[in-house]
């Protein structure tokens, strides 16, 4: 049975579980032939799966729910990431110590579907993002951390496992930085879940395949958590650009392990409710306008983890 998995981003330790499952033969043990498709800044996994280019995708829940409201029936079948790794990283020298200091500053934000948690947070804080008085100036942040290093922005979006370390590697010491984790601010949303098209779940055979897939993938994740260095090397072997470095991937694996640690793969409905509440609470510009229905199913993980 062939399964195509579309990642949300390029090959890196963020997706170690899937690469480990492939490398260690967990997929083949289940009788699956899995192709892992790396993503990139211009790849919308939702679009790929809508076009039939993938059977299952890795996506962030805000983006998946927004797509669902647009009529694309995405359903969460598993949630390997328990925690959110997103944060805002600021230079201490800008004088920012708490979210109250954001006003009048320039903040770097990822768009392309990654902006939803930020917008929710700002509306919760009551800070306008449209450039009006007493608000923040939002920059569409590019691929890297340069805006911070070059002081074009006071804060930029970073992941605990990736961009933050690039700032550190660039030579800025942790004590020169101030970070705001979305989780600590109470606006965390679920990241890196597995999503499939709702209509295909009606097919028992497909369901069965997904059960096998999730079971093998979670086995991969747990192995990666336990053997972070080996997992990082597997990721490195699968990076076709040849651009990733060992140091960075090993460290990333260590951080990612912290985020996957609390999850056996099953989505915790409480986490889901919190995410939905955050997204709905988005003041004047909510990310989603109404409570989604049927946006997740526990059937797959229930079957996979029994």
């Amino acid at each position, binding site marked *: 049975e062939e399964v195509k998995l579309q990642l949300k981003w390029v090959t890196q330790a963020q997706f170690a579980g899937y690469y480990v499952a492939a490398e260690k033969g967990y997929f083949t043990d289940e009788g699956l032939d899995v192709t892992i498709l790396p993503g990139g*800044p*211009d790849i*919308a996994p*939702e*679009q790929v799966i*809508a*076009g039939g280019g993938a059977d299952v995708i890795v996506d962030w829940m805000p*983006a998946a729910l*927004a*797509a669902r409201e*647009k*009529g*694309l029936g995405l359903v969460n079948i598993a949630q390997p990431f328990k925690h959110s790794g997103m944060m805002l990283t600021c230079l201490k020298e800008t004088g920012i110590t708490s979210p109250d200091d954001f006003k009048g500053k320039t903040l770097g934000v990822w*768009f*392309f*579907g*990654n*902006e939803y948690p930020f917008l929710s947070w700002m509306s919760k804080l009551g800070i306008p*993002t*449209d*450039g009006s008085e007493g608000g923040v*100036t*939002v*920059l*569409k*942040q*590019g*691929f890297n951390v*340069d*805006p911070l290093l*070059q002081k*074009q922005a006071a804060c930029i979006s970073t992941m605990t496992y990736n961009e933050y370390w690039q700032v550190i590697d660039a030579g800025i010491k942790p004590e020169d930085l101030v970070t705001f984790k979305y989780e600590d601010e109470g606006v965390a949303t679920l990241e890196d879940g597995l999503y499939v098209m709702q209509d295909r779940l009606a097919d028992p055979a497909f369901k069965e395949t997904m059960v096998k897939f999730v079971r093998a993938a979670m086995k991969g994740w747990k192995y990666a958590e336990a053997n972070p260095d080996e997992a990082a090397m597997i990721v490195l072997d699968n990076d076709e650009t040849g651009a990733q470095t060992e140091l960075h991937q090993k460290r990333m694996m260590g951080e990612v392990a912290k985020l996957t640690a609390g999850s056996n793969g099953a989505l915790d409905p409480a986490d889901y409710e919190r995410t939905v509440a955050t997204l709905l609470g988005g003041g004047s510009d909510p990310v989603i306008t109404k409570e989604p229905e049927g946006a997740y199913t526990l059937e797959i993980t229930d079957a996979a983890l029994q």
Partner: protein
Amino acid sequence: MNEALVAILFWGVAWGTNGVLANRFPKSRLVRAIVPALFGVTLLVLWQGLVRGLEVSPVILPAPSDIATAIGANLPLLWGDFAQTILKGALAGYLIGCGAAVLVAIAVDRSPFLQRGLLPVGNFVAALPIVGIAPILVMWFGFDWQSKAAVVVVMVFFPVLVNMVAGLAATDALSRDLMATWSASYPQALLKLRLPAALPFLFNGLKIATTLALIGAIVAEFFGSPTRGMGFRISTAVGQLDLPLVWAEITVAALAGSGFYGLIAMIEKAATFWHPSQRGH
């Protein structure tokens, strides 16, 4: 399926009509406007028919009618993006880039040393892909329109330079001999012979540069921008699966580009009326 068949039928009929119109009344202004319009309508009908007929998902490719609706619903947004990307980024970059290219071309033409040295190196630099240059220029010139203008400058500079240098060299031997017998000074020969003779080439470059300017300004926004602009909107809207809005922006870009191109072509027509290619065969 039905819609697709109707669309294909329409295509056949329109093609025939165009053939008849173009050959019967080749000189009529009306026909000159109708024929391309009919062709465009055909493309749209075909698109609409195929998308609807084959039930293509709107997150993959929206139908023209959806795009039209999106345009109608987002006029102020589209205008703001247009002003940011085209009026500020593309236009400023176009003017600076083309102006600089013409001046450098004259310097290059004046000095054979520069011509031999700068042109090959220039060709090499021109071959640097924009996707590589854009992030660097965004890094240098900041997030706002200035960096977009810088990308446009880099993109339009060499096509215009190369064309202008070719144009300055394009005078025929007889024309140059005439200037020599009058012992015209360099500025005189430049003003009265080489510049006019270079105009057809220059306009070639200027026309190519119009489309490049648009692409450059839009693409540069992918690599960092304030929260407005056509490139910003396109990439954000793709992320939000708002494909009709994406295509609305693309429509605006295509309209602006064609208009820009048409404007330059009109100026060309007025300025190089004497050239055989403008006098028609």
